[in-house]
């Protein structure tokens, strides 16, 4: 049905997938491209909290991620990510680096 070369490529791909699945099954963490890109990105993570018209920096990224995670949802506004629940509550404003960082945290991976 397929040529030998096609099947060979498919087999090698399947071996790689099987390897990753095996590593994941035994909780072996390996460096990934996403993390490498993150390391290359020299932009500092930034998190701000907005209450009404006042915006303040929140330097504790752990608190920032938890606060943002607790909101109903996050959406993009210009180049920032805004996490909020309702019109009368706090807003968490994260830059891309901070948002991507939070997405990778164990409290957010569900």
């Amino acid at each position, binding site marked *: 049905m397929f040529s030998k070369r096609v099947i060979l490529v498919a087999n090698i791909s*399947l071996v790689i997938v099987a390897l990753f699945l095996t590593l*994941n099954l035994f909780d072996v963490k390996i460096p990934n491209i996403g993390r490498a890109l993150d390391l290359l990105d020299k932009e500092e993570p930034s998190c701000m*909290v907005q209450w009404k018209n006042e915006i303040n920096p929140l330097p504790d990224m752990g*608190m920032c991620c*938890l606060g943002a995670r*607790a909101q109903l949802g996050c959406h993009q506004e210009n180049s920032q990510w805004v996490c909020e*629940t*309702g019109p009368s509550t706090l807003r968490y404003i994260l830059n891309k680096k901070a948002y991507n960082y939070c997405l990778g945290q164990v409290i957010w991976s569900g």
Partner: protein
Amino acid sequence: MARKSKLRDAERWFFALILIVLVLATLNVAKASGYFIPEQPGIQVKAGVIPTVELHTLSLDQKIAQMIIVSGSEANSDVWKKMQPGGVHLFARSKEEQFTQLIDKYQQDMQVPFFVTVDLEGCLNPFANFKQFPAAVEIATPDEAFRIGTEQGKFLKSVGVNLNFAPVVDLKDQIWRCRSFPGDEKEVTLLANAYLKGLQEQGVIATAKHYPGKTLVTRDPHKYLVTATIDNRDLFPYSELAKDVDGIMVSHLITSGAIDSRGIPSVASPQVIGTLKQRYDGLVISDEINMLGLKDFYPTLDEMYLAVFIAGNDIILNFNEDPNEIYRMIQVVKKGVEQGDIPESQIDASVTKILKAKGFMVER
């Protein structure tokens, strides 16, 4: 002929590999959903005017699990029911029915119910999409604070939430600007006391936070280990509220001054929690333990897990979404108890407090 045979071999390998990948993928999905975590037997409850739990009937796994509050997602509801942690914390949802249906699902058939917890602080409000409350900073009088506490308590009870991580009694909120009551330490205490009485009269546990203070002020340039100097004004609300409030939450700040955490995060400091427990016999609750201020302090998660239990927290918040990690935490702590790093009597004392807070009588 030889070429055809090689092609046939490659095809055989192809199908074998497909099968292997499917099996591995299934195992990964099963593992992620907690399929391999052993089910805990239900905790036995003796019926009576006040239902009774005999502590000696609980296994060590069950006791440690009761001390943990996890993130109560829809996806993990079955595995959490299987593992029976002490509580589930709910983040924001868009409709009231989403809360009630999920809570009903969690509490169904549970002999010992879950603590169902939220952070309802006014300006932080998981119900804000359909129910608004004023921010703590906008509450001006004790009467108003009591009324808001009562209103929130009625609402939380109707939804099925039985533990609220509020009021915030940190002084001078300089970051969020809305989470704490206005005024000096005396005014904050007065308002917080009125609020928590309103809440607790409705049967919802209140939590004063974040001991020993300064959480809403510290702007440490180091993002990961956060330090603060505590003075007696920070501690005033706790000493005044200790007789009334059902829970106190401890922060991950490294503190000096009136409360010295001796260079380690407060929540993992036996010194900080030991001192607190000398004057307070309610529930001592950790802040979420995956925050960097705590997590980055320890070389391994195992050391952090042991530290927060050894320190004496009654309830530990771990919102890690992976049930396997929560199970691993229980096993690490269990080993710590078996090896004598954590006295079992300390675990028993915490579980007794938890079960009493859930409305049970506890027999040793």
